[in-house]
C-alpha cells in the first residue's frame, strides 16, 4: 500500500484544500504531472481554436474574389490564428512536456517550486481567457474614411494588427477600439506565465538533479528545456517592455512608436524581433529535444554525438539573439546591418545542420521500428529540413526583400513550426502516451493520422512556396481571378481540410485509447532514460526512492551490456530487474511527503485579468479587485507552508510575498 502521510490540518485564510479527486483537486493541484496534463489539454483546445480560425481563412481564399469573410473579419482571424498558435498552443504544449517529463528525467520528485508551477499554469489560462474575451467585450473599428469603415461583427472584434502588431498600424490611430489593447495586455499576462515557469525550470534543472545525474548525463530533452528556459528568461523581458510602451501609447497618449511625436516605429520592430526570433527557437527546441529521445529509442542505438547535439542546442539559443533583423530587411535599416544580419542568419544554420546530421547518424545502421512516434520524428526531420533550407534563402537580402510578406514566408515558417515543432510534439505525444496513461494508443489509427497529416501538410504549405514566388501577398483577404492564383489556393484549402480530418483521427485515437486502449507495460519501448524505469501511469510520488544515475542513458545500461563488437546485449538479470523495479516503484518503502495543494496560485493568477481590464476601461473598482486578489493570494501563499507540518507544535514563519518553502 502507499504510504503517503495524511497531513495535520492547519488554519490559514482558507482551510487547506484536501480533495484528491474531482474538479477542486485539479484546480488546487501543485503536482507537476497534473499541471502538465492540464497544460496539454488547454493548449490542445487552443490549437483547435487556432485551427478553426485557419480553416475560415482558407475557405475565404479557396477561390478568387470570395466574400466568405469580410476584410475586417479576415484581419481578426489571421491575427488571432498567429497569436493563438504561438502563445496559446505551441508554447504551452511544450510547457506540458517540460512539466510532465523534466522532473522524471532528472529523477526528482517535483519541480523546484511546485506552487510557482501552478501559478504559471493558471496565469496562462487567465491570459488566454483574457485574450479571447475580446470576442465578447472588445471593439475593433477602422480609421475614419478607411476601407474597413463598416459595421464590424463580433467575429471581427478581435485584435487585427497581425501577430507582430507592427506600429503604427497597431496604434490607436489605425486600429481604434479596444481589441489591440486586449492583444497587448493579453500577451503581457501570458509572458508573465512563461517567465515564472522559466525561473522554475532553470532552478529545477540546476538543483533538483538526483544523485549522479551530472549535467552531461542529462537526457537531451532536459537539455533543450534548459536552453528554452534561458531563451524565455532573457527574451520575454524585452517584449514585456515593448508591450508596456504600446499600452502607454494607446492608453496614455505617449508616442514611443509614433513618428508624429518623435517616436520610432522601427524601434518596435527591433524590440519585437529581438524577442520574436528567440521565440522561434523557444517553439522549435522542445521538438528537437523530443526527437532526440524518440530516434535513439526506435533505432536501438545511442544518440549519435550527444555533446555535439547539446552544444548545438545552446549555440542556436545563443546565436538566436543575434539574427533578429532578418525579419526587417524591408524596413529602414542600414546596408551594413543588412549584411551583418544576413551573415548571422547563415551562421545559425550551422548548429542546426549539426543536429540534423546527428539525427541522421543516429538512425544510420540502426534497427528501426517504424511506429507512430518514429514516423512523426522522421517526418519532422524531412519537413524541418525543407523549412530550414527555405529559411536560409532569407539570409540573402535581395531575395528576401522580394519574398517579404508573400506566401513564400508563410510557407517557410509553417514548415518550421508545423512540420517542425508540431510534428515533434505529436511524436512526443505518442511516445509518452503509455507513460502518462498506462495504456497503449492504437497503432493503426496513429499511422493513419501520420499519413493524413504529412499529405495534408504538404498539400497545404508546399504550394504556398510558388504562390508566394508568383507574388501572392500575405494577409490580403481577396485576390483577383486574373492573377491565376486560384488553382493552387484551392489545393491549399483542400490540404487544410485534410489536416483537420487528421486532427480528428488523432482525437478519436486519444479518446478511445485513453479508456479502452491495451494496458501497457511500464517500459513498452525498451527505452533509454530513467523516466521509463518507474511504473506507468507515473505514481504520484514519481520515484519511490531517489535513483542513482551512473551513466548517460542509465536505464538502458541497466538493461543492456555490450559484447566484444560493441553490440548491445541484454543482460541476464534484466527481466528480474524490471519486475523488481515495478514492484519497488509501486510500493515505496520510505515515507513520502508531497507538497500539499493550494488555492493561492489560482487566486493570484485570476487577479491579473482584472488589472488588465482596469487598464483598458480605466476603472478603479476593477483595479481594486485585481489588487485584492493578488494580495490575498500573495499573503496566503506566504503564510502557507509548502507541505503541511506533520507534528506542528510551532507557528509557521510567514511572509508577505510569494515565495516558496522548500
Amino acid at each position, binding site marked *: 500500500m502507499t504510504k503517503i502521510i495524511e497531513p495535520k490540518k492547519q488554519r490559514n485564510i482558507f482551510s487547506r484544500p484536501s480533495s484528491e479527486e474531482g474538479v477542486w483537486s485539479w484546480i488546487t493541484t501543485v503536482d507537476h504531472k497534473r499541471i502538465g496534463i492540464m497544460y496539454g489539454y488547454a493548449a490542445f483546445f487552443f490549437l483547435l481554436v487556432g485551427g478553426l480560425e485557419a480553416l475560415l481563412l482558407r475557405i475565404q481564399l479557396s477561390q478568387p474574389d470570395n466574400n466568405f469573410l469580410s476584410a475586417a473579419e479576415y484581419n481578426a482571424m489571421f491575427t488571432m490564428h498567429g497569436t493563438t498558435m504561438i502563445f496559446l498552443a505551441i508554447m504551452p504544449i511544450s510547457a506540458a512536456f517540460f512539466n510532465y517529463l523534466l522532473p522524471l528525467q532528472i529523477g526528482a520528485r517535483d519541480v523546484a517550486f511546485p506552487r510557482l508551477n501552478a501559478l504559471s499554469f493558471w496565469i496562462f489560462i487567465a491570459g488566454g481567457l483574457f485574450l479571447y474575451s475580446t470576442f465578447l467585450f472588445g471593439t475593433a473599428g477602422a480609421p475614419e474614411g478607411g476601407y474597413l469603415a463598416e459595421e464590424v461583427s463580433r467575429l471581427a472584434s478581435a485584435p487585427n494588427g497581425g501577430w507582430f502588431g507592427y506600429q503604427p498600424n497597431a496604434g490607436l490611430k489605425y486600429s481604434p477600439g479596444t481589441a489591440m489593447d486586449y492583444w497587448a495586455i493579453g500577451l503581457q499576462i501570458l509572458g508573465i506565465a512563461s517567465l515564472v515557469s522559466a*525561473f522554475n525550470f532553470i532552478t529545477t534543472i540546476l*538543483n533538483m538533479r538526483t544523485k549522479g545525474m551530472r549535467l552531461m548525463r542529462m537526457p537531451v530533452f532536459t537539455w533543450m528545456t534548459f536552453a528554452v528556459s534561458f531563451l524565455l528568461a532573457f527574451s520575454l523581458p524585452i517584449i514585456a517592455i515593448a508591450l508596456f510602451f504600446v499600452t502607454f501609447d494607446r492608453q496614455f497618449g505617449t508616442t514611443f512608436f509614433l513618428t508624429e511625436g*518623435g517616436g520610432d516605429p522601427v524601434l518596435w520592430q527591433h524590440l519585437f524581433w529581438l524577442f520574436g526570433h528567440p521565440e522561434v527557437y523557444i517553439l522549435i527546441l522542445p521538438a528537437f529535444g523530443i526527437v532526440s529521445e524518440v530516434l535513439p529509442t526506435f533505432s536501438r542505438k545511442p544518440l549519435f554525438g550527444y555533446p555535439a547535439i547539446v552544444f548545438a542546442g545552446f549555440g542556436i539559443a545563443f546565436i538566436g539573439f543575434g539574427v533578429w533583423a532578418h525579419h526587417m530587411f524591408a524596413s529602414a535599416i542600414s546596408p551594413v546591418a543588412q549584411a551583418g544580419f544576413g551573415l548571422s542568419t547563415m551562421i545559425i544554420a550551422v548548429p542546426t545542420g549539426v543536429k540534423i546530421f546527428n539525427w541522421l547518424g543516429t538512425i544510420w545502421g540502426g534497427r528501426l521500428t517504424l511506429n507512430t512516434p518514429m514516423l512523426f520524428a522522421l517526418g519532422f526531420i524531412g519537413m524541418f529540413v525543407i523549412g530550414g533550407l527555405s529559411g536560409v534563402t532569407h539570409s540573402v537580402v535581395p531575395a528576401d526583400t522580394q519574398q517579404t510578406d508573400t506566401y513564400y514566408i508563410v510557407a517557410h515558417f509553417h514548415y518550421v513550426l508545423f512540420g517542425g515543432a508540431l510534428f515533434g510534439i505529436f511524436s512526443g505525444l505518442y511516445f509518452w502516451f503509455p507513460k502518462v496513461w498506462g495504456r497503449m494508443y492504437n497503432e493503426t489509427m496513429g499511422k493513419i493520422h501520420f499519413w493524413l497529416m504529412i499529405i495534408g501538410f504538404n498539400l497545404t504549405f508546399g504550394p504556398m512556396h510558388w504562390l508566394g514566388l508568383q507574388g501572392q501577398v500575405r494577409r490580403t483577404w481577396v485576390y483577383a481571378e486574373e492573377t491565376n492564383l486560384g488553382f493552387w489556393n484551392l489545393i491549399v484549402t483542400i490540404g487544410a481540410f485534410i489536416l483537420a480530418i487528421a486532427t480528428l483521427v488523432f482525437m478519436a485515437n486519444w479518446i478511445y485509447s485513453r479508456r479502452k486502449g491495451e494496458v501497457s507495460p511500464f517500459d513498452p519501448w525498451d527505452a533509454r532514460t530513467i523516466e521509463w524505469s518507474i511504473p506507468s501511469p507515473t505514481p504520484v510520488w514519481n520515484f519511490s526512492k*531517489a535513483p542513482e544515475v551512473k551513466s548517460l542513458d542509465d536505464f538502458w545500461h541497466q538493461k543492456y551490456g555490450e559484447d566484444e563488437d560493441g553490440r548491445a546485449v541484454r543482460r541476464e538479470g534484466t527481466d528480474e530487474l524490471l519486475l523488481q523495479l515495478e514492484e519497488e516503484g509501486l510500493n515505496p518503502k520510505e515515507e513520502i*511527503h508531497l507538497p500539499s495543494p493550494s488555492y493561492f496560485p489560482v487566486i493570484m493568477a485570476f487577479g491579473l485579468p482584472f488589472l488588465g481590464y482596469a487598464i483598458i476601461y480605466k476603472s478603479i473598482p476593477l483595479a481594486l479587485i485585481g489588487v485584492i486578489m493578488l494580495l490575498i493570494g500573495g499573503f496566503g501563499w506566504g503564510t502557507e507552508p509548502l507541505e503541511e507540518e506533520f507534528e506542528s507544535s510551532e507557528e509557521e514563519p510567514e511572509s508577505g*510575498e510569494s515565495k516558496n518553502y522548500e
Partner: protein
Amino acid sequence: MSDAQAYPHEPTGVETRKLGFWVFLSTEILFFGTLITTFLIFKGRDFPGIKLTDVYDIPFTSVSSFVLLMSSLTMVLAHNALETNDQEKTRVWLLATAMLGAVFLAGQIYEFTEFYHKGFELSTNIFSSTFYVLTGFHGLHVFIGVVLLLALWGIGQRQKGLSLNEGMNLEFIALYWHFVDIVWIVLFTVVYLI
C-alpha cells in the same frame, strides 16, 4: 524537505530558492536594459518642447539618491544583526531601510509633481515619456521593496522572530534591495548626469 537525506538536492550547492531568485534578478537586468536602451536611443534625438534640463534639480535628486544608497547600508546592518541573531537590532535596521526607501519615493513623487507643474508631462514629448516610464518603473520596484521590508518587519514582531534559514528570507529581500539600488546608480548617471 524533511526527507532531504533520502532525496538528495542542490548539486550546485546554492540553496534552491536563492538560485531561483538570482535567475529572477537576471531577467530584471533585461527589463531595465531594454528601458535604458530605449531612453538612450531617444535621448540623442530632436524633440519639441520642454527638456529635462529645464526642470530638474540635480542637488535635490543627489540628496535623494544618497538616501537610497544609505538604505543599502542599513540593509547590510540588518543582515549582520540577524547573523548574530539580534532580533531587536534586525527589526530596527529593517524599519530604517524601509523608511529610507519611503523617503526616496516621497522625493520622487515630489519631483514628478514639480516637473508636471512646470509643463514636463508624460505625453509632452518623447523624452518626457521615456523619462517617466523609466524612472517610474524603478520607483515601482522601490515601492514593492518597501512593502516587502515592512512585511518582513511585521513578521519580525512575532515571538519567534526572523531567521536566515526559513520562510521568506531576509537575504532575498536584501538581494532585491541592493539590486534596485544599483539600478538607481545607473539611472541617476544616465538620466541626470550625462
